[in-house]
């Protein structure tokens, strides 16, 4: 039993935190969010230089061979700073499929480029009416020449506007499968937009777009579940960082804001609510530790899924609690977009529903019990 990060993990998390505090402070982030593309090539190349884009990939492809626990401290730091770069889409989703399901040629072609920060990816999965059901896919693929052609519509593809390559789920006559499709492929169209939490996403349509099979034809569902669980563990850690900021900022406000001649933190009604936020944070952090520790192989698939769902239930409930209270305790100021805490609110609100809300994971947890 040991809950500390090892020295390397701690050093990495600290250096990420230092970099983000310096170059990704609230004003700098605001400019990036307002820019045309909504992410920063300069920041992205720094993330690559720091080894973050290579962290969870095999040294065979230039990576550092880390796992979810190694990423946990990074994601906490990202959550505190509310990083909007397409890091989760690339490192937590797209390239994970290549690392877990790809053949050696695909890994060689893609992973070193991801590690070096030269290639960004996105995972095109959600479809109209599918909600959180990962098996409900209408997009389809058929053999054409030596390769495949993919057709279908994917919604809210995180990081789509920045992606160089997509991992797309589609059905063949043998069942659910995964395909690699270049963003420049013919028949591929992206309608880009900004999400509530200030990230970039898009609806992506494929019309007989040429693609390459990734992994076993018809055997994609277990891999999709595995990678989505991995990404869920990462946003649980990100949530912990964002919750920490929300709690810290609220506590600071209670100590400095004066009404009736005294700091409002002297009022017991507010003290107890602040304590409950803090307890909520600690409970959520515990579940994020569980999620990270169960995300890396070799964990039994059922054990992994059950643990991730348990974590996401707790995270979903507690991010709602903490984000709502952080606004209430800031009074009118919390409503203002001038305060970072209102932006944390937006990210935490979306985390509660990303990769399954509490109700989805309650059902999944029960089905696995």
């Amino acid at each position, binding site marked *: *039993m*040991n*809950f*500390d*990060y*090892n020295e390397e*993990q701690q050093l990495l998390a600290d250096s990420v935190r230092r970099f983000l505090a310096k170059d990704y402070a609230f004003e700098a982030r605001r400019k990036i969010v307002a820019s045309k593309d909504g992410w920063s090539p300069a920041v992205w190349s720094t993330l690559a230089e720091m080894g973050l884009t290579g962290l969870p990939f095999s040294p065979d492809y230039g990576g550092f061979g880390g796992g979810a*626990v190694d990423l*946990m401290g990074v994601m906490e730091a990202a959550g505190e700073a509310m990083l909007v770069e397409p890091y989760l889409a690339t490192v937590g989703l797209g390239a994970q499929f290549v690392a877990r399901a790809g053949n050696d040629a695909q890994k060689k072609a893609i992973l070193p480029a991801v590690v070096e920060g030269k290639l960004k990816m996105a995972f095109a999965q959600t479809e109209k009416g599918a909600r959180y059901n990962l098996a409900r896919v209408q997009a389809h693929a058929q053999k054409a020449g030596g390769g495949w052609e993919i057709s279908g519509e994917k919604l809210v593809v995180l990081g789509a506007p920045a992606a160089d390559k997509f991992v797309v789920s589609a059905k063949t006559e043998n069942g659910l499968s995964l395909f690699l499709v270049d963003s420049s492929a013919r028949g591929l169209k992206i309608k880009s937009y900004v999400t509530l939490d200030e990230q970039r996403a898009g609806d992506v349509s494929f019309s007989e777009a040429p693609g390459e099979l990734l992994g076993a034809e018809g055997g994609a569902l277990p891999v999709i579940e595995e990678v989505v669980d991995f990404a869920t563990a990462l946003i649980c850690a990100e949530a912990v960082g964002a919750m920490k900021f929300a709690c810290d900022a609220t*506590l600071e406000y*209670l*100590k400095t804001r004066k009404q009736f001649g005294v700091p409002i*933190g*002297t009022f*017991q009604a507010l*003290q*107890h609510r*602040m*304590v*409950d936020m*803090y*307890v909520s944070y*600690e*409970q*959520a*952090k*515990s*579940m994020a*530790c*569980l999620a*990270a*520790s169960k995300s890396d192989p070799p964990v039994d698939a059922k054990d992994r899924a059950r643990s991730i769902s*348990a974590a996401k*239930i*707790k995270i979903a*409930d507690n991010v709602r609690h903490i984000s709502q209270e952080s606004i209430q305790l800031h009074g009118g100021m919390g409503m203002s977009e001038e305060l970072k805490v209102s932006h944390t609110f937006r990210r935490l609100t979306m985390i509660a529903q990303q990769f399954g809300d509490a*109700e989805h994971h*309650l*059902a999944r*947890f*029960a089905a696995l*019990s």
Partner: protein
Amino acid sequence: MDLNYSQDESAFRDEVRGWLKANLPQDLRDKIANYEELGRGDLLRWHKILAKKGWVAPAWPKEFGGTDWNVVQRYIFEEECGFAGTPPLIPFGLSMCGPVLLRFGTDAQKKRFLPDIYNGDVFWCQGYSEPGSGSDLASLKTRAERRGDHYIVNGQKTWTTLGHFADWIFCLVRTDSSLSKRQEGISFLLIDMKTPGITVRPLILMDGGHEVNEVFFDDVKVPVENLVYEEGKGWTVAKYLLGHERMNTGRIGASKRELAKLKEFAGRQKGDDGRPLIEDARFRDKLTRVEVELMALEITNLRFLDQMRRSGQPPGADVSMLKIKGTEIQQALSELSMQAVGPMAQPFRPAGIDGAGGGAFDHFTAGLAPRYCNFRKTTIYAGSNEIQRNIISKMTLGL
């Protein structure tokens, strides 16, 4: 990061689990499983079994019978006891009076009282709360006047848990009421319950159970050698005890057992549609949320233990968090258990009435609603959860 116990810790857990399985008498196991009230004999019997094994006071120094276990081992032991469903070890002697004497007692006091506490030959209770002094303990009024080599004690204690079983009581009393600071002038006295002038009156709780009492003191003569530490320094002693909390404040092992039991019998109960209640999504979601809260609390508790083990520091305000969450979970489980039996929660089996005289209803089922009533106490006792929030607010958050 590794959330699992080390090989040594797992081996220790298996040893404890195996020993408890072999040595917890079946009749005691059944009483606990059926939520029956335990008598003095039941409690002391289990105490003596553990004393014989040498496991009754793990935290004490080795020379007085302690086990030399580290904080993680102590936690594992207590949680395994909870999970196995052993009778509780009554804390007043082992975890309160004992540690106080070890820290503040004279050699004579240690020699006189500690062996009896260890062996379960003397049953202790705690005289803190008074009718006018609950959370505001320092306002206590029971007074002790020095007359030669005795104190004369007059006043009243209340909510005295298991006072009707007790041979001795440790009390906070006021020895000087002239001081402006209320915490000063309080002393810590050990009092033999057989002393003339002591009257114990039962307080029956809403579940029909008798576990707490009022204790009246009417010119009770207490020898001065029963004063612990200095006269007027009782508050220092009381504060020391607050920092001497047990490892299992969250009662996670016991809640795990209750959760498993609830799942099992919710599988046998039928929902409105005739299918097992456990498959009813509305019921199931409530149950899962409690289960997840309990998983989180267990990991939180282990995280705190890991920190304590590294830093060597006592747990401080973290214990307050475990108390808040642990008791909320216990209450939620008792509420869901009652809810699970639906209309059959109505027949009343008062606590303390055993199965023999039963009535026409199912004995176990009829115990669930009284238990729900009884468990409302958990967020009130041992420092109400609001007091715990005050502690975190002040100590951890600096508000």
